[in-house]
């Protein structure tokens, strides 16, 4: 797919023929499938995860259609359970986790640090193939009948009771995990070893800090989910006694191991988004970021603290109340670095020169929705409240505020911001603004009612529900259709822009990162001459007195 698109689009424009860049350096399927260029791999990922996003979106559409009525009349319960399971698995493992790191990260990490490629280009290509293989297996599981365990795979249901395609799906997720590990490993080594001259740690763009923190989680957490999923598979296949109480196991052990990865995994999903927002806010207010070291360290703090809080998913799971207490207080702590980021972004706007270009609109959306998502996260970390709202739509709403309201907003913002760099062309600003507005409205209409539903007590993963919840559910479904339209519009104008968009020039936004100091699209080796860095976010000259003291 991607081959063809770029194949046909990059050729006919005369001004692009004059210069060789990564898109026109070679044509044909092989030049894409065997590429080790991080920029091309980023585009391979972009095409793949867009397909998965569409697939997960279709599941979401059917779920929301079903929930228009309380009586479960559109699909069977088995089907409904498979739908929400597959929605979760596809969106989390095959869209959200790779989304920013594997596309924008892959494209930008080497460029932002002034390197010619990632440290291990072949490993990078391998990670895409692994992703495709894992994705194909999981997709096969969908085609042959699906899986109904919920994306959480709780034992003993998944290991002994479910009679759907657990093994196939689990194998797909297991394999995909290695793609994530390889990406993270590649980023860590690249950031350590391949920075341009003068690019010290505290001159790095915050996007890089965020990706470094994300990579830490990928490398340290993913192996645990891999082995845990593998054990579920072994227990199912060979009756190995590890989780199922009937075999002497403890089902809570599964939950501990699962959430040890899967809670930090939400930071894999949101941290790169935060990195994008830091870039957008600075560029479109033409100011250096407020409190650079605090934002940088808060990324690391989130990555580390994020590993200490997983038990807040198990407050009412039969976990010891004392362990619950420890996990609760630690969960409160992880809220702080997120708050610090939000305050610093807001402060960056102060006395800036703020423009309302599309990426900035997404950044505004992110800050607002992430604030709501983050604050409701504190509700969930509070033991007394969580007893009531755990496993209800309150959790669903909170999660989607962070993931859709936060992460996808940032992803869209980032895509709009770097699209001119990636393709060398501008999209239609008017349509883009309209789409951003539609997405914002649709999103809130979809998910805000779910907070209310949650506190009213509607449990998640419910096919049938009491009639008194119908009004709010209909509102949510209406919002979802608006949201769906909102996501379709960019797909159209992005593709349109690849052929008909205005040439962007090297730096259409007047941004200061290294990636903007090279032509768009960049040459294969990224830079025509090796860049040297003297300071980060140098939006305006300043004197020594401006610098922070101490």
């Amino acid at each position, binding site marked *: 797919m991607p081959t063809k698109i770029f194949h046909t689009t990059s050729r006919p424009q005369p001004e692009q023929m004059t210069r060789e860049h990564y898109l026109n*350096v*070679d044509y044909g399927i*092989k*030049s894409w499938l*065997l590429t080790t260029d991080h920029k091309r791999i980023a585009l391979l990922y972009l095409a793949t995860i867009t397909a998965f996003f569409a697939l997960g979106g279709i599941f979401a559409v059917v779920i929301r259609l079903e929930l228009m009525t309380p009586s479960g009349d559109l699909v069977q319960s088995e089907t409904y359970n498979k739908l929400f399971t597959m929605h979760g698995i596809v969106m989390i493992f095959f869209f959200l986790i790779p989304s920013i790191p594997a596309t924008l990260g892959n494209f930008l990490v*080497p460029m932002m640090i002034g*390197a*010619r*490629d*990632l*440290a*291990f*280009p072949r*490993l990078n290509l391998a990670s895409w193939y692994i992703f495709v293989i894992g994705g194909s297996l999981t997709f096969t599981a969908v085609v042959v009948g699906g899986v109904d365990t919920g994306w959480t795979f709780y034992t003993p249901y998944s290991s002994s009771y479910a009679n759907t395609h657990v093994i196939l799906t689990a194998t797909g997720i297991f394999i995909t995990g290695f793609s994530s*590990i390889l990406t993270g*490993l*590649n980023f*860590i*080594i*690249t950031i*350590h*070893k*391949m920075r341009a001259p003068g690019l010290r740690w505290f001159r790095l763009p915050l996007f890089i800090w965020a990706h470094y923190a994300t990579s830490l989680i990928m*490398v*340290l*957490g*993913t*192996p*645990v989910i*891999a*082995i*845990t999923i593998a*054990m579920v598979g*072994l227990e199912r*296949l*060979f*009756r*190995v*006694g*590890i989780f199922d109480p009937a*075999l*002497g*196991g*403890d089902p809570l*052990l599964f939950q*501990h*191991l699962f959430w*040890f990865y899967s809670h930090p995994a939400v930071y894999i999903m949101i941290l790169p988004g935060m990195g994008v927002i830091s870039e957008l806010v600075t560029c479109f207010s033409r100011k250096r970021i407020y409190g650079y070291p605090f934002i940088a360290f808060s990324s690391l703090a989130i990555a580390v603290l994020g590993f200490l809080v997983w038990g807040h998913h198990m407050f009412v799971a039969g976990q010891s109340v004392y362990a619950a207490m420890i996990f609760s207080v630690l969960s409160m702590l992880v809220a702080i670095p997120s708050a610090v980021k939000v305050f610093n972004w807001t402060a960056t706007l102060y006395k800036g020169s703020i423009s309302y270009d599309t990426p900035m609109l997404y950044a505004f959306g992110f800050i607002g929705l992430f604030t709501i998502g983050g604050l409701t996260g504190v509700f969930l970390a509070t033991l007394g409240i969580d007893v009531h709202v755990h496993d209800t739509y309150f959790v669903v709403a909170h999660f989607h505020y962070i993931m859709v309201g936060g992460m996808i907003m940032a992803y869209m913002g980032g895509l709009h911001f770097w699209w001119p760099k990636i393709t060398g062309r501008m999209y239609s600003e008017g349509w883009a603004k309209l789409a951003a507005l539609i997405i914002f409205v649709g999103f809130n209409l979809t998910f805000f009612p779910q907070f209310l539903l949650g506190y009213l007590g509607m449990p998640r993963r419910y096919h049938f529900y009491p009639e008194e919840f119908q009004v709010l559910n209909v509102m949510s479904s209406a919002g979802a259709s608006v949201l769906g339209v909102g996501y379709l519009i960019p797909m159209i104008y992005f593709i349109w822009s690849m052929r008909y968009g205005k040439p962007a020039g090297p730096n259409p936004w007047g941004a200061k990162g290294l990636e903007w100091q090279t032509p768009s699209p960049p040459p*294969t*080796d990224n830079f025509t001459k090796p860049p040297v860095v003297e300071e980060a976010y140098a939006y305006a000259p300043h004197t020594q007195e401006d610098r922070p003291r101490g």
Partner: protein
Amino acid sequence: MRLTHRRTGPVAEQKNIAAVAHHFDTAEQQREASTLGMWAFLVTEIMMFGGLFTGYVVYRNLYPDGFAAGSHHLDITLGGINTMALIASSLTMAMAVRAAQLGKRKTLVLFLLCTIALGLFFLGIKAVEYSHKYHEQLVPGLPFADEGTLTQQVYVFISFYFVLTGLHAFHMVIGIGLLTWLTVKGWRGGFSKEYFTPVELSGLYWHFVDIVWIFLYPLLYLIGRH
């Protein structure tokens, strides 16, 4: 495919140094990146075995008697011999890396072959142990020996025994595959004083597998022996 733009970094003139990839500035940078990459990979391996070890700690704490009873079914002699075999293989591996550092081709190949032999010996013994377990009806999922009131706990122990040693043996098999490739490449003169990164990285991997066993041996074979 047009690849002319590759390998045109500032160090293209250093012909002797085997292949500094286009995106690295120096062979030194490339080697450091590779070694650090291997260490990062080993960290993921620690965490992967770590998931299993966590399960082990939980159940060892929950079922102390069952784990002791289960441990008595394992053969200390075979386990001990295997421990020594792996330690010896670590020594030969270290010597192989040393030979590579010094650019001694034949010594490198000799030590690699020793390492492979010791690895195969380990796997052979492991196979003997597995077949004993099969005959004693101590395999999860098959009809299981009656251990009286401890049957279920022994079942959990044996499950962990098989998963832990199985994953370890799987790593051994991959390691032996890597070493075989190194031997062939080394014999053909593929490594030199300047370029031996694959030997070094495989060495790190091999030692890691040894370390896992250093923990498995006391944790599986030596419980409640007094």
